[in-house]
């Protein structure tokens, strides 16, 4: 088993080749997605994120380079490319707009059914997937269109989880949700990763989200992967690059920098409130006991 779940080797993709609307979306990207962790991909609109994701699950065929899944070229047998979609589950942005069945249960079984699984197996997977996203049995026979926005989103994500993919990719899973909805979705994703040990990729604009949930982060810009490392290292080494890319540095980081400037002995590489608390408490409390 390869150390990496997905490896991209020099992949490129250009839309509308040979027309006036030609656009180079992904430009010779090398990227290794480590197995069993949450990897973040961050970049602004038009940085080539969506194209990259669609190459990872076999929807788009790279015009150059190769995509390896578990060490094997996914395009080795082009006739079997559909199976790659089952192994690398891709949740698109606003996935609730793709719901179509009469009941939640039926919609979530759509993927497993396409895989040709037995009814019993489908039933088991549907239940498990819906449990992961916190949808209770009382909603199984409800119409997905009667649910709240956040619930719809979670049912749609369950539809992909039910295929039990080795890699789960989510494109902006919390877009447009309020803080509570965001926290729920991310809580579900972290829990899913913990329980199954499977690989997860989250795409986001938000450095806050990356700081809180991603162990490793790749930064995409103009179709190129400009950084890829542990999230902490990316944020501390790449501050200027990230700001240049129009990505907002977390407020808490700015605060800690300010404190360091004011002469407090604190680390500047703090990206979440919890970390800041851990960093500051000994300082503030310690001072107290000395006095």
């Amino acid at each position, binding site marked *: 088993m390869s150390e990496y779940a997905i490896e991209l080797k020099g992949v490129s993709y250009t839309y509308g080749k040979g027309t006036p609307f030609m656009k180079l979306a992904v430009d010779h990207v090398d990227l290794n997605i480590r197995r069993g962790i949450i990897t973040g991909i961050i970049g602004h609109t038009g940085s080539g994120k969506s194209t990259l994701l669609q190459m990872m699950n076999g929807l788009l065929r790279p015009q150059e380079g190769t995509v390896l899944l578990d060490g094997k070229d996914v395009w080795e047998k082009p006739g079997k490319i559909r199976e790659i979609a089952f192994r690398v589950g891709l949740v698109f942005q606003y996935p609730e707009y793709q719901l179509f069945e009469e009941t939640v249960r039926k919609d979530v079984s759509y993927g497993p059914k396409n895989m040709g699984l037995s009814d019993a197996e489908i039933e088991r997977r549907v239940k498990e997937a819906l449990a992961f996203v916190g949808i209770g049995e009382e909603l199984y026979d409800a119409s997905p269109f009667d649910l709240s926005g956040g619930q719809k989103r979670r049912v749609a994500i369950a539809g992909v989880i039910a295929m039990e993919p080795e890699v789960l990719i989510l494109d902006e899973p919390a877009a447009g949700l309020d803080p509570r909805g965001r926290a729920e979705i991310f809580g579900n994703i972290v829990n899913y990763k913990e329980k199954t040990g499977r690989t997860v990729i989250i795409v986001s604009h938000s450095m806050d989200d990356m700081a809180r949930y991603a162990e490793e982060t790749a930064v995409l810009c103009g179709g190129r992967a400009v950084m890829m490392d542990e999230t902490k290292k990316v944020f501390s080494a790449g501050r200027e690059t990230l700001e240049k890319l129009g990505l907002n540095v977390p407020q808490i980081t700015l605060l800690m920098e300010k404190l360091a400037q004011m002469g*407090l002995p604190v680390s500047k590489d703090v990206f979440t409130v919890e970390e800041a608390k851990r960093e500051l408490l000994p300082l503030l409390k310690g001072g107290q006991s000395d006095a």
Partner: protein
Amino acid sequence: MAFIECKDVSFSYGEGENRKAAVKHLSLSIEKGTFTAVLGHNGSGKSTLAKLLCSILLPDEGEIFVDGMKISDENLSEDDLIELHRKVGMVFQNPDNQLVATVVEEDVAFGPENLGVEPAEIRRRVDEVLKIMDISEYARHSPTRLSGGQKQRVAVAGILAMRPSCMIFDEATAMLDPQGRKEVMETIGKLHDEMGITVIHITHNMEEALEADRVIVLNDGVIALDGTPHEVFSETEAMQRMGLDVQQPTKLLHELRLAGVPLDDGITDLDACAREICRFCAGKKQ
């Protein structure tokens, strides 16, 4: 009387058993020329309030006045309704679903055309608002090729061309990326600071709400908090209870306080937070 005046307004969706109150006995006045942010989680009634304010919905109970005109009236004449919509513009959430024309400048002209403004005057206004919104270079483009933030600026330009005195942004940043949000917030700043337009910005992003003069937090159809951003965001616990967030520095101070460090709570400004922590440390050393 204030520019917008809601008196004991209630509104429910649905009928019979499924009846669900969205806004409950809400009273509110908004002064001319102010910038108000309305915060609340999904389903808190904030979008219903926006729809009530431009008479898309009529309240079940209570009265609403806009610029002295009673708009909560079933018998409001068509001309009055048009005048209300001219005065109070709405920018909606989905930038794609509010642009009507295949060319940007034609879209901006749509409002004034509906109002029967003279062609030469429309031309003048369109050029002017395109310039204000900094989208003149896209005047002849198709809106489909613009970014989300640019589309929202086209939508704002289309309303500005009707010479409104108030603009309501109904979650107009929810579907945008950080760049688009920034563009819309800069636009709002321009409308409010330079043009004196009354702005009501409905959102669930607290950083955006920080820029307002006044923040109203809706929860379950009633006003839960109302005050300056500073006043509202110092209510860390109440905010979190309502499924909202406060900005990270405020949250940190709150957490530290809970952990037993006697810091001042309720500081919303980043610099002030830093000063407070430093002050405390300095106090310790002495």
